[in-house]
């Protein structure tokens, strides 16, 4: 086992993985020819909307699903042939994971520690940061915890056996912004302990917290790179436009002949132009009868990149 680790520097490797589900007459391609690798000690993010195929990839990597085609390795072990070994060394937090609601915080953690042949005491240092926050409530039933607390407990349970690699399927979905922030800080700390982390999320703002990300859509990976690189490769000036009448502004912007792309982003519309000339746009909008509008150049985010990639 020691030797093998030296041979494989990649924590995870996928090659041409295909997974289809057949429901009655139609078949759905959940994962379509996906290849990527995760380096050891890296936080790798799978970013994409619901139905992009993230969960299927997690299940293939944790040996819970068999891929139709392709090969995958986790820490050098084949997911099909060496599933037993993989199951004892990975930490996995499924998206649907909900702990045992009628067990207390401590009982949950103790249960998962024992299932993985370890004890809380043995690996306490690993979960200490997270678990300390939970300790005041350790006799409380898991069902009575808040969403953020539940996710922290779930993370502790996935971590308690000191896995070399951690698979977290949408760990922050349904969690408040503060807890989400804390959760990511914990992941950073785990990374410093040498644990490789594969995490999926549909929150684009979390993407830049990963070392590298794969942008996924409809079972395919559109792009894999460092978040900063992806943003840098945006290659266009991005403008945020807002006005008193946001809805009419969107139709007008989309009707503007120089518009390359325009999407509604909360309280602003993000716009790229074929010929980069904000002044012309200014005139166009004034002529269109918008008086209270504001055009400002902004830095593109991951979501802008995602939208741009989706169009291609």
């Amino acid at each position, binding site marked *: 086992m020691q030797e093998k680790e030296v041979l494989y520097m990649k924590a995870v490797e996928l090659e041409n993985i295909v997974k289809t589900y057949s429901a009655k007459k139609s078949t759905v391609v959940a994962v379509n020819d996906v290849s990527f690798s995760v380096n050891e000690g890296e936080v790798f993010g799978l970013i994409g909307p619901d139905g992009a195929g993230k969960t299927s990839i997690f299940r293939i990597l944790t040996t*819970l699903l068999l891929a139709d085609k392709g090969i995958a390795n986790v820490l050098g072990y084949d997911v099909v042939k060496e599933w037993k070994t993989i199951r004892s060394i990975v930490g996995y937090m499924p998206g649907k994971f909900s702990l045992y609601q009628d067990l207390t915080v401590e*009982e949950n953690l103790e249960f998962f520690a024992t299932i993985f042949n370890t004890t809380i005491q043995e690996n306490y240092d690993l979960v200490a940061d997270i678990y300390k926050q939970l300790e005041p409530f350790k006799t409380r039933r898991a069902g009575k915890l808040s969403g953020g607390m539940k996710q922290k407990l779930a993370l502790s349970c996935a971590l308690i056996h000191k896995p070399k690699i951690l698979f977290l399927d949408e760990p922050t979905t349904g969690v408040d912004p503060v807890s989400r922030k804390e959760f990511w800080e914990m992941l950073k700390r785990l990374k410093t302990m040498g644990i490789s982390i594969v995490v999926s999320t549909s929150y684009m703002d979390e993407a830049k917290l990963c070392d590298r990300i794969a942008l996924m859509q409809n079972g395919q990976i559109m792009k894999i790179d460092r978040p900063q690189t992806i943003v840098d490769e945006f290659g266009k000036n991005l403008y945020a436009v807002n006005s008193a009448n946001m809805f009419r502004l969107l139709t007008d912007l989309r009707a503007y002949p120089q518009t390359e792309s325009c999407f509604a982003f909360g309280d602003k519309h993000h716009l790229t132009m074929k010929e980069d000339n904000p002044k012309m746009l200014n005139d166009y909008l004034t002529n269109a009868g918008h008086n209270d509008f504001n055009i400002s150049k902004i830095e593109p985010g991951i979501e802008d990149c995602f939208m741009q990639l989706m169009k291609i």
Partner: protein
Amino acid sequence: MKQLFTFIRKEFHHILRDYRTMMVLLGLPIVQLLIFGFAITNETRNSAIAVLDISKDEATQNVITKLESSRYFDIDRSLTSSQQIEQAFKNGRIKLAVIFQPNFQNELMHSNNAQIQLIADATDPNQASTLVNYASSIIMEYQSELNDQNKLPYTINTEMRMLYNPELKGAYTSVPGVMAMILLLISTMMTSISIVKEKELGTMEILLVSPMKPAMVILSKVIPYFIVSLVNIASILLLSVFVLGMPIQGSIFLLIAVTILYILCALSLGILISTATDSQLAAMLISLLGLMLPVVMLSGYAFPIANMPTILQVISNIVPAKWYIIMVKSVMIKGMGLAGIWKESLIIGGMTAVFLLISIKRFKIRL
């Protein structure tokens, strides 16, 4: 080993913390046994019958007194004419009418032939014939008493003896039936639900991605319900012996042994159901409709198997409860030993093996 122990303790936490389910698990057998033992029973007791006695003489009085002193009948003397009989049946006041002919004693003593008419409400045919039988045997008894006084040359006396259950107690059928039903309910339904629950909650995913072997997961799901079943067996047997007055004729160890065999069969059936379904609701429906119904209908508990159409008799062979009820009756009531029930034990053992084999084949180590 420690994994198994912890897992079992976790299962007990689930069971013990869900008060309502626990009350049902432990209370249901007691309530059911008491209901079937006391309230719902096929025994005929204190049935309302009417007597139309126009002759009002010593002989009719004697017969009426005899009927009244038996524990089967409550006598309603309010009828004064034959027109009232049908009305009494129609408004459901009486189950049986006993009508004496006019001048009953005179006819009896002088022409040696007096007539009593028995009219029964046959909307419930079993009850009607039971009541008629009871009434005529009481009347026959009176007649033989008369005959004792002046000996007739030729008489045939029938003497009846009800073996194994001389008092014709309902408990003798309800106890084995309730045992078969309760054990199936707890072992099969609760195990399948508790395994499927892990799938539904998503915790099964974690358990699969753990060093714990799937067989261990199943084993630790099964053991708690096995123990709960044993507790229930104890309470059912204690109740039936001390409250319902149904003694255990045979070896109690043999009785417990065959019961454990039946529990194992029910548990493996529960595992089988859990491999076939993904939702708690489906598991419950399959257990209830697919198992409870056959147990009640085809096990010989509610309806005698011998009276069923051939096709149902054939189907009844695959109902484990049928064999279990036969074994319980043999050991508990007839006091038979292993030699008398080896065939049934083998059948249940074989069924268990088949259920387990299919479950192992079907158990998914992946999602």
